[in-house]
C-alpha cells in the first residue's frame, strides 16, 4: 500500500512535468488525462517465463494496432504511443509493471494473457482509476466488482466449459464422459466444474473425475481407473504440458476409441509433439482460427504477415492483443468524435458503451455486460500440423437459460 501511494505521487509529478496538467483526479483514484501530441496506452505482457510465446504474440498484435492507427493519422491529430512493460509471467511483476505504466501517465491499460497476472493489474487499475482491457484472462473473477474499469476481449471459463459440453453431447453424441483435472490450477478446476455441470444438465453422465498436479508426468493410475468406468470421452481441462503426455498414455492403456476434449489451455504448437498421434483428432475450445474466412481475420493475418516477415501468429494471443488495443483505440476515437475530455474516467465509460466492435476474434459488445463480452467460441480439432476449425458457437446457444 505504501509503495502504491509513493508510486502514485511519482505519477503525479511525472504527469505534471511532462504535460503540465494538474487537474484533480476524477472517480476513485485519479487516472490520467492525455496531453501533448501523444496519447499513451500501457501494455503489460510476459516477455520472459513460461508465458513468453503468448506474451510475444500479444505484443506483436498490439504493435500492429498502434501502427495502423498512427498510419491513419492518429486520433484528433494526436499519435498513439504504446508503452510495453514486462511482467515476466509473474503476478507480482505484472503489478509493478502496471504501476510503472500508470506513473508514466498512460490513459488506459491493456493486458494480460493470464488471469493470475490480470487480477494483480486490476488492483492497480482500481487504485489509479485507469480502464483495463484484459487480453486472454478467462477467469470470471477478473471483471467482478471493478466499478466498470475492467473489461476483456475474450470469453470466460463459464462459456468454454458449456461449449465443450454442448459439442460433446450434441455433435459427438457422447453420453459417458470422464474428467481429468489439474488440482493445482484454478483454471482447470473451474473449467472441469463448468463442463460437468452443463454436460449433466444436457443429460450426459460424468462417470468419474480423476486428479493430477501440473508437473506430474505419469498418469497410469488415474487412467486405469478411468478405463474401468468405460467412458466414451475424456475431458482434460489442464494445460497442454500435461495433456500431451496424458493423451499418449490414454492410447497406451488401450482406450483407442475414446474421444479427447479440452479448453483453450491446449492451444500450443507443442501439443502435437508431446501428444503425438494420440492427440490428433482431439477437440478443444479456442478464441478464433486463422482459417476462418471472416474479413476481419483475413485482413488481420495479411497485416500481421507484412509486419512479421511473412510469419503467421503462433497462438491466438496475437489476435486478442490486437483486439484489446484496437478496442481501446476505438473508444478513444469515439471520445474524440464526441469532443469529450480525453481522460481515463471518460475512456472507461466509453469502453463500457462499446456495441458490436468488429474484433478479429469476433464481435465484442460491452454495453450492459459488466466487462464480459458475449464472445463466440470455436471448437477446433487437433491435426498433425496444427488445428482445424470445426464449429463456432454463440454463448446464447450453449449456456443454460
Amino acid at each position, binding site marked *: 500500500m505504501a509503495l502504491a501511494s509513493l508510486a502514485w505521487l511519482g505519477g503525479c509529478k511525472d504527469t505534471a512535468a511532462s504535460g503540465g496538467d494538474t487537474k484533480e483526479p476524477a472517480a476513485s483514484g485519479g487516472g490520467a488525462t492525455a496531453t501533448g501530441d501523444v496519447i499513451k496506452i500501457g501494455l503489460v505482457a510476459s516477455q520472459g517465463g513460461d508465458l513468453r510465446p503468448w506474451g510475444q504474440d500479444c505484443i506483436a498484435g498490439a504493435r500492429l494496432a498502434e501502427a495502423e492507427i498512427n498510419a491513419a493519422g492518429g486520433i484528433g491529430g494526436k499519435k498513439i504511443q504504446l508503452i510495453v512493460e514486462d511482467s515476466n509471467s509473474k503476478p507480482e511483476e505484472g503489478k509493478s509493471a502496471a504501476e510503472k505504466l500508470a506513473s508514466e501517465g498512460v490513459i488506459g491499460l491493456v493486458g494480460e494473457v493470464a488471469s493470475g497476472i490480470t487480477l494483480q493489474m486490476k488492483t492497480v487499475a482500481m487504485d489509479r482509476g485507469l480502464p483495463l482491457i484484459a487480453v486472454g484472462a478467462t477467469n470470471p473473477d477478473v471483471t467482478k466488482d471493478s466499478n466498470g474499469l475492467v473489461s476483456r476481449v475474450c470469453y470466460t471459463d463459464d462459456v468454454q466449459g458449456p461449449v465443450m459440453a454442448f459439442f460433446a453431447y450434441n455433435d459427438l453424441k457422447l453420453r459417458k464422459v470422464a474428467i481429468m483435472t489439474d488440482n493445482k490450477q484454478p483454471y482447470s478446476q473451474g473449467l472441469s466444474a463448468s463442463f460437468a455441470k452443463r454436460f449433466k444438465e444436457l443429460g450426459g453422465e460424468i462417470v468419474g473425475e480423476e486428479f493430477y498436479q501440473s508437473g506430474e508426468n505419469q498418469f497410469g493410475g488415474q487412467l486405469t481407473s478411468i478405463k474401468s468406468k468405460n467412458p*466414451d470421452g475424456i475431458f482434460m481441462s489442464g494445460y497442454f504440458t500435461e495433456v500431451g503426455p496424458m493423451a499418449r498414455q490414454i492410447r497406451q492403456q488401450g482406450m483407442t476409441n475414446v474421444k479427447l476434449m479440452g479448453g483453450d489451455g491446449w492451444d500450443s504448437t507443442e501439443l502435437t*509433439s508431446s501428444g503425438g498421434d494420440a492427440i490428433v483428432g482431439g477437440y478443444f475450445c479456442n478464441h478464433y482460427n486463422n482459417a476462418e474466412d471472416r474479413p476481419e481475420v483475413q485482413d488481420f493475418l495479411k497485416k500481421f504477415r507484412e509486419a512479421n516477415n511473412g510469419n503467421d501468429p503462433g497462438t491466438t494471443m496475437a489476435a486478442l492483443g490486437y483486439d484489446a488495443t484496437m478496442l481501446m483505440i476505438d473508444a478513444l476515437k469515439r471520445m474524440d468524435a464526441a469532443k469529450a475530455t480525453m481522460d481515463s474516467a471518460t475512456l472507461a465509460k466509453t469502453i463500457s458503451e462499446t456495441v458490436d466492435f468488429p474484433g478479429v476474434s469476433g464481435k465484442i459488445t460491452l454495453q450492459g455486460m459488466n466487462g464480459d463480452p458475449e464472445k463466440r467460441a470455436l471448437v477446433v480439432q487437433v491435426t498433425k500440423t496444427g488445428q482445424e476449425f470445426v464449429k463456432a458457437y454463440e454463448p446464447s446457444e450453449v449456456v443454460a437459460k
Partner: protein
Amino acid sequence: MDALFYTLVGIDLNWSSLPQQLVNGLVVGSIYALIALGYTMVYGVLRLINFAHGEVFMLGAYTALLSSWVMGFSPDAIRKFYESEAAKKLADPSYVERSIPADPFNLVIMILLAMAVCAVIGAVIEFFAYRPMRNQSRTAALITAIGVSLLLQYAGSLFLPASPPPSVAMEVNPYQTNVSVTLVPAPKEIRDKFDDSVSALEAAKESGADAETIGDLERKKNDLEGQVAATATAITMTQGKIVMLLTVLVLMAALRFLVLKTPAGRSMRAASHDFDSASLMGINVNRVVTFTFMLGSALAGAGAMMLVTFEGTSMQPFFGMAPGVKAFVAAVLGGIGNIPGAVLGGILMGLAETLVTWLGFSNYKDAVAFVILFIVLMFRPGGLLGSSKVEKV
C-alpha cells in the same frame, strides 16, 4: 457385507484393474528408484543430501531432447515432414502418407549421451561446489546444495528451450505397439454382445444404411468394446514400458556388480563405512567421491531419458523438482545410505501412489506417500532397510 462397507466409505473397488495398477506402480516406482539411488549413494559416502540431484535429472532430460533434435526430430523438422507429405497426398490422391521411420539406434545414442552428460555434470558439481565445503559443517554443505540446485534451475531458464515447454517427439520412439496379456477374460455375455454388435455394424455397412444408423451402431460397438476391456482382468503396456523396465533391471544389476565385485565399488563401500579411515588406508577418497557422483548422476540421466522419451513428458528447467522430492522421500523411506533400500523405497512409493488412485483418491495421492513415510519413520527411524544407529556427535 464387504460391498456395503466399501460403499459406505465411498470406495468403489474394481478388482479387475488391480494387476494393471500394480504394473503402473512398478513403472512409476522404477523411475523413482533410479533417482533415489543417486541420493542414497552420495549420502552413504559423504553424509550429504545432494539437493541438486533433481536438476541433474532435468539436465539429463534436456540432453535427450537436444540430442533427438540434432538427430532430425526437432519440431520444425517434423512439421515440415508432415506438411510435405500432406502436399504430396494433395498432388496425388493415391499417394500413401508415410511417417518418419524411428530407429532404436537413436534411443541408444540418446540414453548414452544423457548418462554421459549427467555423469560429467555430477562430477563438475561435486568438484566446484561440494569439495571446497567438505570440511565445513554439514549445514553449510546442505545450503551449498540448495544453492547449486537454484543455480541450475535459473541458469536453465536462461539457456535452455523452455517456453512453450518442449517435449521429445513421439516419432523418435519405435516401441509404441501395445502388448496386452489377458489374465481373466471379460464375462462371456459381454463378449457375445460385442461380437453381435460388430456383425450388426458390418451388416449395416454392407446393406448401405444411412450415416446416422451406422454412427449409432458404431457407438454401440465402441461402448461394448470398452466394456470388454473394462471388465477383463488384463495388463496392457507398450513395448516402450517393457524396454524401460528391462533397462532399469539391467542398470541395477550393473550397479550391484560394480559396488560388490569391483575394486572401485570396494573403495566406495569402505569410504561409506568410515570416510577418514578409508583415506588412511590409502584409498583415494576424492576419486571415490567423484565416482559416486558420476554413477548416481548417470542413473538419473538414464531415468530422465526413458521418462521423457517413452511418456512424452514436457520439460522446463524446474522439471527436476517434483521427481527429485519424491525420489528423496523414497530414499529416506528405504533407509538413506542403503542401496537396496533406495530401490525398495522407490518401488513402494510408486505402488502406494497407484494403489491410492485405485481406491479412488487420486486427489490425495501425494499426501498418502508422505503419510507412509511418516508412519515408517515413526517405527523405524532409519528407514525400512537402514540402520538406525545413533550418530556420534
